[in-house]
């Protein structure tokens, strides 16, 4: 939903983080995988989920701008809550990246609200159109 705020190298790095978030709770729910696939298509990185590498760390400085940092965290939070649960492992991963980016707790709270609104829209749309 917010990948237009990233450049190509940031998109590739983000998809690796997203691949990690999808399996963070020990299972890959279909709605999370479907959203990840959509993000790949939006990023111009193809449709083959087998191409995704998984990473739990970011190269310092790659996401230097505030817009890029916010986009990454928001998208990861959306992925993590799309299945209706926010697992401890997912929360720990998101928290660690918030720390790496140096975002404030109020920024984090706002990003959680954004993710909840976005995930709500995505879930309701999926319920309507299948």
């Amino acid at each position, binding site marked *: *939903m917010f990948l*237009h*705020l990233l450049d190509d190298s940031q998109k590739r790095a983000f998809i690796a983080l997203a691949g990690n978030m999808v399996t963070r709770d020990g299972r890959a729910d279909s709605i999370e995988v479907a959203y990840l696939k959509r993000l790949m298509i939006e990023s111009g990185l193809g449709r083959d989920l087998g191409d995704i590498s998984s990473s739990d760390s970011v190269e310092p400085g790659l996401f230097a701008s505030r*817009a890029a940092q916010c986009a990454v965290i928001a998208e990861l939070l959306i992925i993590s809550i799309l299945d209706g649960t926010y697992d401890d492992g997912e929360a720990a991963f998101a928290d660690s990246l918030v720390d790496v980016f140096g975002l404030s707790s109020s920024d984090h709270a706002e990003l959680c609200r954004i993710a909840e*609104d976005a995930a*709500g*829209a995505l879930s309701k749309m999926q319920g309507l*159109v299948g």
Partner: protein
Amino acid sequence: MFLHALSEQQKTHFFDLAQQMIVADDMVAEPEVAYLDRLYWEAGLVGRAGLGDVEAAVDLSIFDSLKARLVVTVELLIIAIVDGEYHPKEAEYANAMVAQFGITPDQHATLCSIAENAAQALVDMRNLAD
């Protein structure tokens, strides 16, 4: 946000409708244009988008599935409210589309709720990331 569900031809026709929605209230608000730009990016049409005649009738028969009609309607609703206002002329335009698409009152209410969630997330992200 949901354009991945449309065919290439449907996307082209959707953008004709989107341009009509943007001028429906006789004002072109910056957030509306920003969201339209984001949709062009999502559709892979950045730099290739045509400027349609906003007075010309759009052939709606191209939207030949309920899914496509729901996606078009929700995206038009997001455009209408992303500037924080739902002008009576925008509502009139949206209601006309809903009627022509045969969307039920229940579906319409759900689409409005989805659009509100999505628009809120977009506005909050813009405020946070800027």
